[in-house]
């Protein structure tokens, strides 16, 4: 089971690294916002799995809060993209 958990962590970590590289090489700001969103959600996945490895129940609450309030970061990025216009 430990092997399964760490394999998943490695896959998600690779997704984060690829995403950060894509943020650095993205052609326009909108693409950067999208890939930044992907990095955020991969971070939630890593958080859940590290909670499993340490068998801590707090990771469930953290994932719930991050998934419900994650829209705020995206909406803020969207407002920045349009320079405050709706």
């Amino acid at each position, binding site marked *: 089971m430990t092997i399964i958990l760490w394999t998943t962590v490695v896959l998600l970590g690779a*997704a984060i690294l690829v995403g950060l590289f*894509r943020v650095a090489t993205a052609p326009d700001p909108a693409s950067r916002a999208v890939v930044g969103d992907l990095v955020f959600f991969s971070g939630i996945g890593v958080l859940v799995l590290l909670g499993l490895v340490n068998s801590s129940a707090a990771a469930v609450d953290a994932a719930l809060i991050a998934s419900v309030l994650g829209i705020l970061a995206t909406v803020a990025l969207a407002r920045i993209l349009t*320079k405050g216009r709706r």
Partner: protein
Amino acid sequence: MNPALDLALTVLIAVLLIGGAFWMLTAALSMFHARDSLSRINVLSPATGLGLPMIVIGAFLQHTRTTGLDPFVLVKTLLTALALIIVSSIASNVLARAAYLSGSPVDPRTAPQDLARAPGEGEQEPHSEDR
């Protein structure tokens, strides 16, 4: 617990966790293939709508396998999976609208582009030629 049942549960957890992480990695790699920002927002959807709920449900099954069923954790997990699907859909919609309005280049074959037209100008015909 019954050993055969435990093995089946372990396999199910492995499929959910590694499959979910595979969706996330696939979405990250597909960001290099998509040509414009609207396509990248489309590519993001399987990661947040399918990959992350799979990881969360797999984590719940593993938690249940080791410490037993906790109804509060079940409710929280269902709420998380539901919130991920609904919230990420709305967030993608808002972000796509902002990306279009901010003037980032889109594929010229994108149709309809109703945001670029005045109200009352009529409906735009969807693109009918082959893509």
